């Protein structure tokens, strides 16, 4: 278990250090984004600051209901590569975090443990179609460790102009190998206007998904 801690810490360190080394004077004042995600497994809040369009750094709180633990983490999102084309854009990110997990399970004696996670995220979109994939491995010491991945496809029923209300119909498939229900399928609607984005859906397990993102 200790080896995994150091391996994860090393990985996170490798991801962070080059960015610090590459840090340059900030010409882009950056944006602050607040994300609130809720589904059948987890409630989370993530606030991050983007000094450049290449990375963001922020605080993330997660409450894993069935897994019986909370986590407070410092999260770094790195844009590894962006492909800008005339009609499409694709992105490759690595998201990593380190922090503290707190068990809510009465049978656990050591309530707090070091926690870290890392994973990659890929997306591709045009104004009509959207697809994405992301995964994450989380190690919360003696409290829990798990891998999960998810993919989405989406289509915009109409093409809105800049400033309009934009609507996407999406389907998300989540795979959690260690869960009782290994696959969760959630049809959802994404809507955004200006700096506000909301998503809502109900999974095949009957769980409600509700996400809200605001960008300043």
């Amino acid at each position, binding site marked *: 278990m200790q080896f995994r801690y150091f391996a994860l810490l090393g990985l996170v360190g490798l991801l962070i250090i080059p960015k610090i080394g590459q840090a340059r004077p900030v010409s882009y004042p950056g*944006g602050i984004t607040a994300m609130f995600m809720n589904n059948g497994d987890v409630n989370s809040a993530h606030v991050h600051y983007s000094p450049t369009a290449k990375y963001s750094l922020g605080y993330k709180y997660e409450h894993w209901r069935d897994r019986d633990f909370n986590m407070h983490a410092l999260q770094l999102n790195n844009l590894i590569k962006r*492909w800008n*084309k005339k009609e499409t854009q694709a992105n490759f990110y690595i998201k990593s975090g380190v922090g503290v997990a707190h068990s809510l399970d009465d049978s656990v004696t050591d309530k707090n443990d070091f926690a870290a996670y890392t994973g990659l995220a890929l997306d591709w979109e045009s*104004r009509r179609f959207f697809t994405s994939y992301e995964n994450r491995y989380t190690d919360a010491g003696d409290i829990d460790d798990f891998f999960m991945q998810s993919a989405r496809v989406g289509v915009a029923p109409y093409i809105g102009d800049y400033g309009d209300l*934009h609507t996407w119909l999406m389907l998300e498939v989540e795979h959690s190998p260690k869960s009782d229900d290994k696959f969760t399928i959630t049809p959802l609607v994404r809507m955004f206007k200006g700096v506000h984005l909301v998503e809502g859906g109900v999974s095949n397990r009957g769980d409600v998904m509700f996400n809200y993102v605001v960008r300043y």
Partner: protein
Amino acid sequence: MKKFILTFLALTLLSPVTAFAQNAGNTIYVDVNGLVCDFCARAVEKVFNEEESVEDVKVDLNTKVITISFVADKELSEEKIRELITDSGYDVVAVRSAEDG
């Protein structure tokens, strides 16, 4: 009297044209790749609106053109415009003035 009225009319009619011409000369059009998402394109507005010389920014997702209007007697260099758009996360294809069409 007739001469005065004609002069007044000519000035009245020509004034907006002159103003438009000045404004058009103070506007830059940038063709951009990757401009597909309204939510993400807010970054463009954000970075340009923080520049004192910028009066207005318009994003057109259909044509993939960013239109930047400058306050009178002020502008940004092409290099700075390219830098701000790159920092917003997009790739510049071309920077055009009104004269370029």
